[in-house]
């Protein structure tokens, strides 16, 4: 039979910076030795939340780099250490929108920056855009791999 994961549990597991819900943690601790399963609908909901925030992220990051006083040309002139500091400043400046989803903006951005900081700081602005173009598929693949490998989830349908 196995145990079906709900959206909150999946997001808690995949995004370490997300404030964990007590119920989800309790569920996972209780059933982590069972066969874990995920329904298409839950998987799709998690994917769409991740994609939604990724879409905000790519626009916010580019706006931050290109519109404030440290514009894109300056980004290209900064060394990796300074770019890394700028990314931290970017995170500090992000405001959580009033209405929250199951996945909050700031924790998601933190997860994303933690996963890709090393790549971002090495790229000039044009190459960074090229990197961001493929980031949605990276995030979706990361998400699927975590579920597949860490939780041994059997996937819904793949062609």
């Amino acid at each position, binding site marked *: 039979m196995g145990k079906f994961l709900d959206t909150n549990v999946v997001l808690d597991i995949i995004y370490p910076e997300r404030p964990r819900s007590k119920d989800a943690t309790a569920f996972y601790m209780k059933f982590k030795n069972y066969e874990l399963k995920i329904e*298409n609908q839950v*998987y*799709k*909901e998690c*994917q*769409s939340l991740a*994609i*939604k925030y*990724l*879409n905000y*992220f*790519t*626009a916010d990051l*580019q*706006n931050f780099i*290109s*519109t404030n006083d440290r514009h*894109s040309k300056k980004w290209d002139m900064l060394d*990796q*250490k300074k770019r*890394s500091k700028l990314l931290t400043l970017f995170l500090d400046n992000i405001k959580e929108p009033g209405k929250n989803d199951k996945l909050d903006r700031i924790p998601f951005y933190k997860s994303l920056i933690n996963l890709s*900081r*090393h*790549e971002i*700081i*090495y*790229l000039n602005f*044009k*190459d960074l*855009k*090229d*990197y*961001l*173009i*493929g*980031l*949605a*598929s*990276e995030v*979706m*693949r990361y998400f*699927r791999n975590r579920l597949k490998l860490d939780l041994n989830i059997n996937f*819904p*349908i*793949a*062609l």
Partner: protein
Amino acid sequence: MVSTSLSENIFNPIPLKELSNKMKKRHDKWLPIVNDLFDEFMISNGDKFTFLNDIIIKEMEKELDIYTMTTEDYTNFQKELEDLDERFAHVNEFISKLSPDEYKSMITSKYFRAAKILKKSAASLREDLLQKEVWNENDGLIYTYYVILSQVISNLVTKLEESSAEEGNKLIPTIGLVSLVYGSVVIAYIQDKLKPEVLIERLSELATFSNIPNIKTSTKVKKVLKRSRKVPVI
């Protein structure tokens, strides 16, 4: 919004170009109809092209997804086309007289071509996005959408190519609807009518259904990243 456009309506399920290519002398009566329909509705040079695109965009807003589509939904769309121009009814009548193998071969070649055009168009879209100073809503996801949609269409057509006549009969409406409903997102993006929530919903449906495409970064980015991995993280 990026300017990348499709000069041909590749998502309409009737294989007009393929029909025209395969028609022989004995089809003298049909050939002008097929060619006129192609020129009027499929090529971006007039009101009828825009009108058909608008009909296709309406498909995007229907509650149809890759898991729940039925043959009836496909037939309904065909009826809409016939209401738009009765010549489509004549063409559908002609198609119904083709042998299953002939029809399958036309659909296969139509959608292989559609996937190829979409892939080529994705490459220009990528160039446009790189040139754009700041991205708007949808810009961060649309390239992935183009790639995943062309991959889904290609995979379905490969499956059709390898299928029996009976399996093919079931697959053809599926390919037609997938291309129509998910292709409408591409048309809406080009026309600047795409709502971010629709793109997000449709992209996550495709990503749930399909393998996630591996989007290659440029050689330059690849080199930078390869070099960067040799340096310790700060």
